[in-house]
C-alpha cells in the first residue's frame, strides 16, 4: 500500500492543487489523505525576489487539495539558501 505512515513526524513538502507549496512536520493523516502539519510555512516562489516563507502554524489540509507529499531531506534543505532561489510558482492543476 502506498501509505503515508513513513512520513509521520518527518518534515514534508506539500504541493497543493492551486500550486502552493507548504512545508511542515506531518503530525497525522487519515485514509482520505487529509493531513495535519505542525509548524508549517508556505513557500512563495517568484522570479522577482527570493523565496518568501510565510509562517502558518498548525494546518489541516484536505486530502482532495493535495497533489504531492515529499519527504524533505533536512540537511539538504538547510543547505539551500532560499533567498537566492528564484523560480516561477508551480502552476495550478488543470484537468
Amino acid at each position, binding site marked *: 500500500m502506498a501509505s503515508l505512515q513513513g512520513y509521520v513526524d518527518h518534515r514534508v513538502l506539500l504541493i497543493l492543487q492551486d500550486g502552493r507549496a507548504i512545508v511542515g512536520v506531518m503530525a497525522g493523516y487519515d485514509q482520505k489523505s487529509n493531513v495535519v502539519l505542525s509548524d508549517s510555512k508556505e513557500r512563495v516562489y517568484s522570479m522577482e525576489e527570493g523565496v518568501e516563507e510565510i509562517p502558518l502554524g498548525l494546518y489541516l489540509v484536505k486530502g482532495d487539495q493535495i497533489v504531492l507529499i515529499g519527504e*524533505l531531506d533536512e540537511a539538504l534543505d538547510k543547505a539551500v539558501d532560499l533567498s537566492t532561489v528564484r523560480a516561477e510558482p508551480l502552476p495550478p492543476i488543470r484537468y
Partner: protein
Amino acid sequence: MLIFSVFKTLTDQQVTVELKNDLSITGTLKSVDQFLNIRLDSIKVLDEARHPHMMAVKNCFIRGSVVRYVQLPAEHVDTQLLEDATRREAAAQQKR
C-alpha cells in the same frame, strides 16, 4: 482493479509520472494503492532548473487523482497480455 494489479507488478521499476500541473517526476515505483496513489523513491524532477521546489525531496507520495500519465518501462509490460486482460474485463463489465 486491473490497472492496480499491473502497477503492483511494476514495483521497483523506474517510471516517469506526469502530473496535471505539468510537472514530470522520474523515480523508482515503491508502491501503489487502490486509488492509484503512487510512492516514488530517488525522485528526479524533469527540467529541475525551472522547478527547484523539490530539490531537497528524495521520495514522495503522489495522489492518484492528479496523475495525467505514467510512462512505464516497455520491457516490463506484456502488452499482448494486458490487451487481452483489459478486453476480457470490459466484456465482463458489459454483461453485468
